[in-house]
Structures are given as C-alpha cells and as structure tokens.
C-alpha cells in the first residue's frame, strides 16, 4: 500500500525525545528543588539559595554518612575490580573450554534481586555470627559490582590478540611479568571503566546496605531514613549530590570504554 507514505523518522525522533524527557524530568526536578528557598518541595520555585547545601556541610550526620559512603565505595572498587579482572583474565586464558559456562555463571549474581541478596547475606552473617558493620556492607557491595567488572573486562578480552602474550612467553617472560607488563596496560581503560561503574553501584546501593549494615549509615541510607521517618529540606541537596556523583562517574566510564574500543581498533 504505497499510496500513503508518512515519513516515520521524525515520529521516532519525537518519541525518543519524549522518553528522554520522561527519564530526565524527575531528576531535574530534584536538582531544581535543592536550590529552592522554600522549605517544602512544591512549585512555584521561590528563589535561588545554597542554604540547604550549607546546612548539609555543617550537619555531622551527613558528614559521617558521606565519609562512610566513600569508604565503602572505595573498598568495593578495589575488591570488585581486582576479583573481576582476575576472574575474567583467568577464564579467558585458562578455561577456554568452559568459557561460555563460566561467563554465564559469573553473571548469576546480577540475576538475583538486591533484596534477596541482602536478606541472604543477613541470614548468612547471622548464622556464622559475624557482627554487622561497614565490612559486611563492603562484602555485599563487592558481590553487586563483581559481575559488571567481569562483563566489562571479558568484553575487552574478546578482541585481544593472543600472539602478543605468546611472543612475550617465547622470549622467556614469566606469567606474572606478562600479566603486569602486557595484559594490564592493554586492559587499563576497561579496568578504569569497571572501577568507575563499581563506585557508582556502591555509592547508590541502598537495599543490600539496609540488610548488611550495623549502626553505620551511608548516604543512600540517610536518604532512606529521611523518607521513612521525616523529610528535611536538605534531602534534595543530598539527592542532587548523589545524582551528580553517579552521572560524573558513569560519564567518565563511558568515555573510558569508548577510548578502549578505539585503541583496540587502531591496533588491529
């Protein structure tokens, strides 16, 4: 039926724009309210203020939560990245036959909702009588971030030329030397991306934290308790801070992944 041909591309473009608006409008709203002089988060915006950010800076609960968030996210980055890189390289190099199976197995934790991971960890720590603290939170976050690291690194290893490592081996380099001098530098951009993603995942995680933390609060936990037990005007400022941190980290990760791809293409 070629009689009526409406150009569809602009319609698709319009639809995509509307979906992006749907995705971003709520976030923009939170950011807007964080600068609003009014104590309650309703329109109209009365005026511009930095008061809520100022109050946060002076708030000791907030400062403790922020410090805890950075401690947990930092430790998660180190753990998840180290374990994920080791697993991905190991699987790629030594377990070629089971590669597909091991890849699927490593992404299993991704398929478990955070709620279930949280209660499972809580039950486990309860049975082994481990005290809940930031350490247990870090253990939980490392499981959340691990599959992402593994997938990012594995994807990079697929386009890897094995002859480089073989040449090094023929020249007498040890496994450790090869890993440190050849594999790691080649993987560097992917590792950076994985580390940044781990940071965001941990920095924003609330459900696993909720079940695995003792008395220490992280930033998302502080937002959570505010929402449950009493909102103060500072909440928009805290929320905005977490949005900014996540967006910056994810944006940098995206750049790192793209850079990794282009350097790999150039090399081939």
């Amino acid at each position: 039926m070629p009689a009526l041909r409406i150009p569809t591309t602009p319609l698709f473009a319009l639809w995509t724009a509307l979906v992006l608006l749907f995705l971003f409008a709520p976030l923009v709203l939170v950011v807007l309210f964080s600068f609003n002089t009014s104590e309650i988060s309703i329109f109209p915006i009365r005026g511009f203020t930095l008061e809520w950010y100022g109050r946060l800076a002076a708030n000791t609960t907030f400062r403790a939560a922020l410090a805890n968030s950075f401690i947990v996210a930092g430790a998660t980055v180190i753990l998840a990245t180290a374990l994920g890189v080791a697993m991905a390289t190991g699987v790629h190099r030594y377990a070629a036959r089971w590669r597909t199976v091991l890849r699927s197995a490593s992404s299993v934790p991704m398929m478990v909702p955070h709620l279930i991971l949280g209660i499972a960890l809580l039950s486990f720590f309860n049975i082994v009588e481990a005290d809940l603290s930031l350490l247990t939170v870090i253990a939980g976050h490392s499981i959340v971030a691990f599959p992402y690291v593994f997938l990012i690194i594995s994807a990079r290893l697929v386009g890897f030329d094995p002859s480089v490592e073989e040449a090094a081996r023929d020249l007498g380099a040890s496994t450790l030397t090869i890993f440190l001098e050849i594999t790691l530098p080649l993987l560097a951009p992917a590792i950076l991306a994985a580390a940044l993603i781990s940071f965001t995942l941990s920095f924003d995680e609330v459900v696993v934290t909720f079940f695995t933390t003792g008395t220490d609060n992280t930033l998302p936990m502080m937002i959570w308790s505010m929402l449950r037990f009493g909102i103060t005007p500072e909440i928009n400022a805290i929320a905005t801070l977490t949005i900014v941190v996540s967006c910056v980290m994810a944006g940098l990760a995206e750049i790192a992944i793209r850079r990794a791809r282009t350097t790999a293409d150039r090399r081939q």
Partner: protein
Amino acid sequence: MTRRGLAAATAFLAPPGLWIAVFFVLPMATIVLLSFWRVVDYDIVADFTLANYQKLFRPLYLDVFWRTIKVSLLVTVISLLIGYPVAYYLARKTKRFRVTLLVLVILPLWTSYLVRTYAWMLILGTKGAVNQGLQAVGLTSEPIAWLLYSDFAVTLALVHIYVPYLILPLYSVLEKLDPSLFEAAKDLGGGRWRTFWHVTLPLSLPGVATGCLFVFIPSMGSFVTPELLGGTRSILIGSIVAQQFGVAFEYPLGSAMALAIMGIILLAAVALLRAGRPAGVA
C-alpha cells in the same frame, strides 16, 4: 596443563572463585536451608519442616504474590512498548546523534533508584507537580489522591527506573541486523508494516527477551519503590519479605518467600529465553 600453568590458573581463578563462594553461594544456600527450618521463641531452630512453604499459600500472601506478578508484567509490557521505538530509532534511524542519545539513555540508569523513586513522590503527591499543574489549568478542583500510594505510582516509577535496561540489549540486537535484509524486503514489495512484522520483529526477539527479563527480574524483587510509593494500598511481596527479616523475625518464612520469588524469576527466564530464540525469517 603443565604444573606451572595449573599454578597460574589457580592464582587467577581461586581468589575470585572463593570470594563468590563465601559471599554469594553460601548466603544463597543459607536461605535455602533456613526455608526448611523453624523459629521457636525468637530462636532459629534447625528442625526440618515444610510449614514455611505451606504458609505461602495463605490467601493474604497469594494475593500479594499475584499483585507483584501482575505489576511486574505490566511494567515489562509498558517498558517494551515505550522502549522498542527508542531502540529502533537509535539503531536504524539515526547516525549523527547515536552516541549522544545512547549516553543519555544510559546515564539515568546509573543514578540511584532510591533518588528516582523519591523524585516521583515529589511529582505525584497531593501537592506534587502533576496535581498542581492539573489544578492550575482548571482540569481538577481537588488534588487526585490516587496518583501516589497506588499501583499506578509503583508501576510508573518502576517503568521509569528500568526502561533503559530494556532499551540497551534491544538496541544492540537491532544494530547488528544486516541492512541488506531490509532492502530485500523492500525489493520484494513488503510494506513497512509487513517488513516490521516479518523481518524486524522476529529477528529482534532475542533482544526483546533479554530486555524484558532485565525489567521483570528487578520488578519482581523491588522493595524500595513499592515501599515508598505503594503505601498501604499497593503492597508488593518485597515489602513482606523485608518485614520477615525485621521486626517479625521470621527468617525461615522470609527465606521461603524469597525462594518463591526466585522460582518465578527462573520460570520467566526460561519462558522468555525460549520464546526469544532467534527464529528463521519466516
């Protein structure tokens, strides 16, 4: 494998393997075990019982399970309807803005779902942006109460949070489709709709299946969003599970519920991945 090779393989694979075993496999095994145990006087007793699973069939719990499945399916279907045209546009209709638009789809995905849920409280509340807007233009004289603390609010927010998870895998499948297929369909006189139904859609099914799964799984296990936006009118199973691990102190019952959720997720995964197996162009 040589001895040196074996040692190296162990050095790489043993530490992460062990870590995952201790902090993922053992905890998951713990709730399987717990689900067959019972609580006596606020103490978990290792005493085999099927009572926890029997309790799941109480009308109250069946109701909540059913509502959770319905909401999760609805979230998945709406996400597919909203997300498919976006993935299609990104993969096949634009070249110039592709990277920028992709990054824009990915960014919200990395922002906290707690914060995004909170944002919907601001929008849907009785003094929220939507109600203020409606009253300002005179469409309603009183705030609409069911916007917040309802299935509607939970569904809307879950779609908002998880739709990027659907767009991305769908995009990567659509992007890899061979353009010559579409030219062939055109040359053979297939209209746009026929090309879509007989070529594009069947070939994109693996992406549809993966995407739907990525939305359905976290929706089934959602806790923060229904807890904050569902109120007492829209309670999903996640909140009931969380209660068992809080004041109720019913770890065994909570574990049985969690495993039932995993069972539903597994069924959905098998069904979806089966349906999404790449079929021939028929």
